[in-house]
């Protein structure tokens, strides 16, 4: 049985998080001493029956009160500034990260790399490269927690949440579901495998699946999306080339950012946001498409974000 007193430290964030953890521990110990030493001292020195001077000197108590109000206030504000700053950095994912989609369901993790491979309850990633997870759940709320990376994020049905990390040590680390999700919540666990880059390349080549965007393109045709959104379509539907990451004008005179969530909503709840100049014709695909398939479609639409809508250019 291997035994640790402290968790393994295997990501860039883990270093910063631990730094703060131990600084907080030191500050707490200091405050404990500040309270417990006088407490013990008074309790012993002024115990009943002991002959000591109990005459109080006449001091302005409000000065004491203000002192021990302001010092803790300054201390906690400093802690706040530090942790908030660190959190901002933890939240902004670096560009050029490896992208992995995660779907949680009772009680397993389904993952898919942008390069194509799918995994269940396991995640293989290379050392030293940032990895960004885009996550959703097909039932209840879960939480993707990797203690060695000091990272967790709830995985919420109906939303996409993200989490990123840059592994700094080769090894095998726990994945836990940290949000209670029902009967075998404690079995919704897995492993992250951090590999040397060349091992990772070899691992990727093993299955040689198609990249996610290509799988999405295949779905785009097989589900019939291309019948309306395709180039040769006679139906007046918005073209999807050059769509992703742009502001879309709506019939309601509002604008909406064409991001993952917008595309997901447009597939499942097409009537909720109608693009300006189009009619509400699209059927909902709710119940006909899985969360993984939606994520593949998004990957495809993302991959054509830099193309001009055909026919629009001269």
């Amino acid at each position, binding site marked *: 049985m291997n035994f640790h007193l*402290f968790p393994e430290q295997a990501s860039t964030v883990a270093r910063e998080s631990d730094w703060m953890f131990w600084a907080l521990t030191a500050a707490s110990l200091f405050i404990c001493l500040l309270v417990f030493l006088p407490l013990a001292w008074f309790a012993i020195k002024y115990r009943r029956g002991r002959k000591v001077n109990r005459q109080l000197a006449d001091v302005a108590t409000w000065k004491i009160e203000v002192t021990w109000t302001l010092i803790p206030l300054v201390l906690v504000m400093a802690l706040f500034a530090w*942790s908030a700053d660190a959190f901002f950095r933890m939240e902004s994912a670096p560009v050029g990260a490896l992208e992995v989609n995660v779907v949680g369901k009772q009680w397993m993790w389904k993952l898919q790399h942008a390069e194509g491979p799918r995994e269940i309850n396991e995640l293989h990633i290379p050392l030293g490269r940032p990895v960004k997870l885009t996550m959703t759940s097909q039932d209840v*709320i879960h939480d993707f927690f990797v203690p060695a990376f000091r990272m967790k994020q709830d995985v919420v049905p109906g939303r996409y949440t993200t989490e990123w990390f840059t592994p700094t040590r080769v090894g095998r680390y726990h994945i836990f579901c940290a949000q*209670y999700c029902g009967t075998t919540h404690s079995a919704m666990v897995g492993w992250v495998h951090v590999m040397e880059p060349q091992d990772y390349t070899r691992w990727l080549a093993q299955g040689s699946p198609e990249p996610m965007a290509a799988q999405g393109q295949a779905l785009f045709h097989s589900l019939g999306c291309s019948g309306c959104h395709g180039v040769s379509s006679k139906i007046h539907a918005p073209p999807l080339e050059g769509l992703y990451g742009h502001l879309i004008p709506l019939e309601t005179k509002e604008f909406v950012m064409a991001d993952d969530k917008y595309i997901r909503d447009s597939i499942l709840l097409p009537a909720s946001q109608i693009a300006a100049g189009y009619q509400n014709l699209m059927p909902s695909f709710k119940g006909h498409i899985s969360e993984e398939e939606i994520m593949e479609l998004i990957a495809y639409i993302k991959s054509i974000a830099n193309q001009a809508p055909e026919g629009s250019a001269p």
Partner: protein
Amino acid sequence: MNNEPENYLSEHSVRSWLLTTDHKRIGILYLLSILVYFAVAAVAAALMRLTLLNPTGDLVLPETYNKLFTLHGVLMVWFFLIPSIPAVLGNFVIPMMIGARDVAFPKLNLLSWYLFNIGGLCVLYAVVVGGVDTGWTFYTPYSTTYANGHVVTMIMGVFIAGFGSILTGLNFIVTIHKMRAPGLTWFRLPLFIWSLYSTSLILVLATPVLAITLLAIAVERLWGVGIFDPNLGGDPVLFQHMFWFYSHPAVYIMILPGMGVISEVIPCFSRKRIFGYHFVAFSSIAIAVVGFSVWGHHMFVSSQSVYAAMVFSVLSFIVAVPSAIKVFNWTATLYKGSISYDTPMLYAFGFIGLFTIGGLTGLFLASIAVDVHLHDTYFVVAHFHYIMVGGMVLSFMGGLHYWWPKITGRMYPEIMGRIAALVTFIGFNLTFFPQFLLGYLGQPRRYHAYPPEFQVFHVLSTAGASILGIGYLMPLLYFVWSLKYGQRAPANPWKATGLEWQTPSPPPSENFHETPIVTEEPYDYHPEADELPPEPQHA
């Protein structure tokens, strides 16, 4: 009993208890009922700790484990901690402390007790017919759509008991405003009254939000109205906002009364006026007010916006300050006092130690960057048990020992009391300190099985829990023993200053034979005068 003068316990019929409107008797009714709920919840905890001795959790099935922690949480939070000090000790001593004959609305007070128990019986019924496995937090969409079991029955139990809470809070607010004895101005009030007043404000303002939230779950579960389930067009995170809008202030419902007890016990057993009366009083109000705006710190990883998280983080740090002020003032009160180590005082020392640790570990969780790692791990479990058990249960025990002579007219055996306080303190730390380490290692909460490298800490924790259990059983036994064999208590065994000590023990039905008149500030203790006293009367 026939050689005693007439007092509130003189009548013995069942009817005289079940239809009583005497705040003292209602306090005792509450004490008996919360003991039952506590016992059930403690058994659930014991079964969980036994299951966790083993990484594969062989003792009970995962479903059973999940039902156990749900039961433990629901009963401990709503049916033990929230009513513990307010409804038992508060009911008993508030009117006496302010020189009143009863609370403002005695019949409403009895109604509160009935509502509370109807709620409690609903919860127990839900458990007997199959149980609920949602956790006490009832997170959606699990609770509304996916969970089996008797969720609605249990929710209704909490819902009904909530009205008992609201009425108790209302009763206390009106009582404290309108029924103070002549001369008892706001700044002559004992600090216990200030903290119960703050508690009552929260009870009245926050509990209705819980009622709405629970009702919304029932509506979605029964009729499929989409409020929280995204498949029905709802928002599951909305539930968390609503739930914690109540449940974070509820944490202060569970600790402010404890702080009130400590503010009574420390001056009495150090024979000193409390240091910084106004600061201690207003810090209670500050906690009650700021405590309403920190709920989002339960949701740092829930997908709420980064900016919202910042605001909740800064407010959570700020709410630590009034608690720190209290701890400093209690410590300063000891300076140049004449300190004795009677049982209530030992519990008060324990409280300061454990509450300080609980509060400081709260700073870890308010630091967003660190909370991302610690959230939903055993670190959080350890943190809130340091507040709820280390804080509230210890102060409840301290208060119960302090007022036991007044309540029953009997002294408990002092030596046993001191030993039990010590056993509780040791058992508690052994149970929960290892959980801080477990949480930092990454052990998530609510896990029926866990990786084997965590086992050492779980074994320590279970060993501690069995010691803690002894610490709870001892007072139960000697309190019952004292009812028959304990020495008769004088009116004021601790030579304390509050009005409740100026009337016989146990008090007459109308509390005071004549209405007291107050001419002084509270805590008129003099350490010099109390030096070299005759042996305490109970020794």
